[in-house]
C-alpha cells in the first residue's frame, strides 16, 4: 500500500512538473527510471497498469544478455497498422528494454513525445539493483563480471539513432512478424487498428519453405532488417522480411554477409554495433540457409566454397 502511494505521488509530481514546465522541458527524459512509468512498485519489479510485456519471436543478439521488453500506449490510443511493415505509433508511446547478466545492468527507453519526436535514453542500474539513473549521452563502458571479457557498453545517444532512426519504424522488435500470439490479442483489444481481418485470429508468419528457412529469415529480420530493407541502407542486400513475403537474397551476397557476421573486426563486423561477441547459434542458422541457397544455384561439380577469398 505504501509503495503504491509513493508511486502515485511520484507520478502526480511528474505530471505536475511536466504541466508547469511546458513542452520544452518534456523533451528531456527523466533522470530516474522510476519516473518513466514502467513499474508500479518501489522495488521496480511489477509493471505498472497499462504496461504490456512482449517478447519478439526473433531476437536481436546482444552478446548473451537476457532481456525483457515492455510497451505502453496512452489510454484510448492505438497503433496504426495500415502499412503492415511500418506501424505508426501514437504520441505518448513508451517502450523499455531491460538487459541483464544475472543482475539488471541497463534499461533502454524510447518515447514518442507530444511533439511527434522520438526520444532515446538509457538507464544504468545501481550495483544493488535498487535504482536506475539516466546514463550520459555519450554512453559508457562498465565493468560487468558476467559480460564477455567483463566489459559492457552502454550505448550513446548516437548509437541509439544508428539503429532506430533510419529504420522503417523507430520501434524495432514490435511488429507484425515478431509478436506471434500477442498480435491477435492486441488487435482484438483495439490496440492495433487498420490491420488485416485475419490478424484477429492469427499473426502473419514469415514466408518460407520450411521452419529452418523461416528461422534464418527471422534471424536476419531481427538482426539486420532495421538497416537492410528496401529503401534502407544503400547496398543491394535486403534482409528485412515483409508481411507479403521477401525474395531470398543473392547467394553470393548472403555468403558475404555471413563473413561479416562471423567477424568482430570493428571495420567489417555485422551488425556494426551493439555486439562484441559472435552469435554461434544465429550464425549456424543462417549458414544452413546460405548453404541451401548455394546448392540450388550451383551444380555439384562446380559448387564453390561458401568462403570467398
Amino acid at each position, binding site marked *: 500500500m505504501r509503495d503504491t502511494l509513493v508511486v502515485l505521488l511520484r507520478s502526480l509530481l511528474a505530471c505536475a512538473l511536466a504541466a508547469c514546465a511546458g513542452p520544452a522541458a518534456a523533451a528531456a527524459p527523466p533522470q530516474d527510471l522510476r519516473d518513466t512509468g514502467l513499474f508500479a512498485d518501489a522495488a521496480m519489479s511489477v509493471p505498472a497498469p497499462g504496461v504490456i510485456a512482449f517478447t519478439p519471436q526473433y531476437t536481436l543478439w546482444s552478446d548473451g544478455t537476457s532481456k525483457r521488453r515492455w510497451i505502453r500506449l496512452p489510454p484510448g490510443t492505438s497503433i496504426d497498422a495500415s502499412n503492415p511493415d511500418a506501424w*505508426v*505509433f501514437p*504520441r505518448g508511446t513508451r517502450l523499455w528494454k531491460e538487459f541483464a547478466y544475472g543482475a539488471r545492468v541497463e534499461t533502454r527507453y524510447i518515447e*514518442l513525445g507530444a511533439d*511527434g*519526436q*522520438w526520444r532515446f535514453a538509457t538507464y544504468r542500474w545501481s550495483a544493488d539493483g535498487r535504482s536506475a539513473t539516466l546514463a550520459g549521452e555519450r554512453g559508457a563502458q562498465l565493468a560487468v563480471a558476467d559480460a564477455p571479457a567483463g566489459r559492457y557498453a552502454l550505448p550513446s545517444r*548516437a548509437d541509439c*539513432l*544508428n*539503429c*532506430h*532512426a*533510419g529504420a522503417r519504424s*523507430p520501434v524495432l522488435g514490435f511488429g507484425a512478424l515478431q509478436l506471434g500470439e500477442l498480435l491477435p490479442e492486441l488487435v482484438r483489444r483495439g490496440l492495433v487498428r487498420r490491420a488485416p481481418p485475419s490478424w484477429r485470429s492469427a499473426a502473419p508468419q514469415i514466408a518460407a519453405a520450411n521452419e529452418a528457412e523461416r528461422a534464418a529469415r527471422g534471424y536476419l529480420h531481427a538482426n539486420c532488417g532495421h*538497416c537492410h530493407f528496401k*529503401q534502407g*541502407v*544503400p*547496398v*543491394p542486400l535486403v534482409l528485412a522480411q515483409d508481411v507479403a513475403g521477401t525474395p531470398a537474397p543473392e547467394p553470393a551476397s548472403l555468403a558475404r554477409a555471413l563473413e561479416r557476421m562471423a567477424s568482430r*573486426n*570493428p*571495420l*567489417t*563486423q555485422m551488425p*556494426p*554495433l551493439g555486439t562484441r561477441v559472435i552469435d554461434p547459434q544465429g550464425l549456424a542458422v543462417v549458414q544452413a540457409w546460405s548453404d541451401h541457397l548455394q546448392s540450388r544455384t550451383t551444380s555439384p561439380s562446380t559448387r564453390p566454397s561458401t568462403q570467398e577469398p
Partner: protein
Amino acid sequence: MKPARSRLAGATFAGAVAFAAALTVFLDAAHAAEPVALAAKSAAKPAAPSAAEAAKVARGKYLMSTSACMDCHTPWKMGEKGPEPDLSRLYSGHPESMVMPPAPALPEGPWIVTWGATNTAIAGPWGVSFTANLTPDMETGLGRWTERDFVQTIRTGRHMGRGREVLPPMPIAVYNNFTDADLKAIYAYLRTIPPVKNKVPEPIAPAVTAGK
C-alpha cells in the same frame, strides 16, 4: 630535403588542419548543428523552385571547396607547377588501381601518421583508411545514398549513417558543425558532379598493417 611526395602530403595535411581549425571558429552559434530530429511522420516535401535548387547546389559547391574536401577526396598528382588535385578524378576517392604496399613502420615516438602520395590513403593507429568516392556513381560512389544517409553519416560519424565508424583523418567533429541545410546543400552538389567508377578499397585493420 624532404622528398616531393612527403612535402605534398605534409603541406596538404597542415593546410587541412589549419582550415579545419578556422572553420570551427567561423561557424558561430547561428550555424550550430541542428539536432537530428526524428519525426514520427515525414512531412510532404514541397517542390523547390529551380532557382532555389541552383542556389542550394552552388552553396554546396562553395562549402566543399572551402572545407578541405578536395584535399583528401580528390587524388593528387604531380603537375608542372607542383602537386595539384587530379580534376579528372574529382572527389572519386582513393584510386582503385593504386594498390598500396604495407605502410612503413614508424619509430617509437610522436610521429604516428603516414600519408600516401595521392593524399587518399592514410595509415595510423586506426589502421589504413582510404578516402571515399563521393561521386554519384551507382555502384562505387554515393549513387544509392539518400540525402538522409549522407546527413546521418556526418551526424553519427558512422559509414552510411549506421555502419562502421568513419575513420581518421575525416574530421567528423569539425563537419558536425555544419547545419542540416549545409549538409543537404553539399549532398545536392555531389549529385551534380560526374560519376566516376572507382571502387575504393575497404579499410585495413591495425593488426594487418603493423609493419614492424
